[in-house]
């Protein structure tokens, strides 16, 4: 699918989406360039349409995905994202797991604060993305990497 070798992540987060959820259509995409971010936005949009998300929820999820993908690229030095559809009973959702083997996040509280940035941006990426999805989780180890999980449920 891409010319990149699967990164050998030193950092393997032990994070499962949600207890009791059935995982369907798992897919992994690389995140090594701007074009990959655009591709991810397109694929996430298609999945959200397939699950009949409303237009606002589609837009929120795609925007959150774009923010976190940029972080993976910019701060994590690239990585990959796993896309999964989740089912709990009749409830459907989309789970995105972003993993990089970059430097990790040292001060999580500050990283999540609006307006704080270490990279010259606006500092809205993490905190903003958290507001746009239903479930948000970060797992990070300094020097080893970062994993960010986003879940949006169909309303």
């Amino acid at each position, binding site marked *: 699918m891409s010319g990149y070798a699967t990164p050998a992540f030193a950092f393997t987060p032990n994070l499962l989406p949600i207890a009791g959820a059935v995982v369907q259509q798992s897919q992994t995409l690389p995140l090594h360039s701007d074009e990959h971010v655009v591709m991810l*936005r397109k694929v996430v949009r298609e999945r959200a349409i397939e699950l009949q998300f409303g237009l*606002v929820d589609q*837009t*929120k999820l795609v925007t959150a995905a774009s923010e976190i993908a940029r972080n993976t690229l910019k701060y994590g030095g690239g990585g990959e994202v796993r896309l999964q559809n989740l089912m709990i009973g009749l409830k459907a959702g989309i789970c995105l797991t972003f993993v990089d083997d970059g430097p990790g996040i040292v001060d999580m509280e500050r990283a999540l604060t609006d307006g704080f940035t270490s990279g010259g941006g*606006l500092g*809205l*990426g993490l*905190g*903003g993305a958290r*507001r746009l999805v239903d479930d948000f989780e970060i797992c990070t180890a300094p020097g080893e990497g970062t994993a960010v999980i986003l879940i949006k449920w169909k309303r």
Partner: protein
Amino acid sequence: MERIPILRMGKLLLVTIQVDMHDRLAMTLQDDLTDRIVKDEAKGVLIDISALDLVDSFIGRMISNTAAMARVLDATTVVVGMQPAVAITLVELGLTLTGVKTALNVEKGVALLEKSMRR
């Protein structure tokens, strides 16, 4: 290299963004627009984002910065055609595009620019 076209109409510059912009493309547009404002002595810039189904913090920042740069170069910027779902998402994200003039469509945007140029 991929570029977003900028059209000149009198003292106005018109940009219609019709592709899903990656970050480099957004930065190129910002550079091109500021160059053209000076070269064409433009007084107004109209950015039509009606075809954009996503404005994230990077694109939002590009729009804000472009408007600020245009202001310093004596031109007014109006952003038109934002989709409602994009507006909802943008504000929830924490971006309110303070200082950026907006209009619902191109017609209203041009009217706003012409009004601001008459002053």
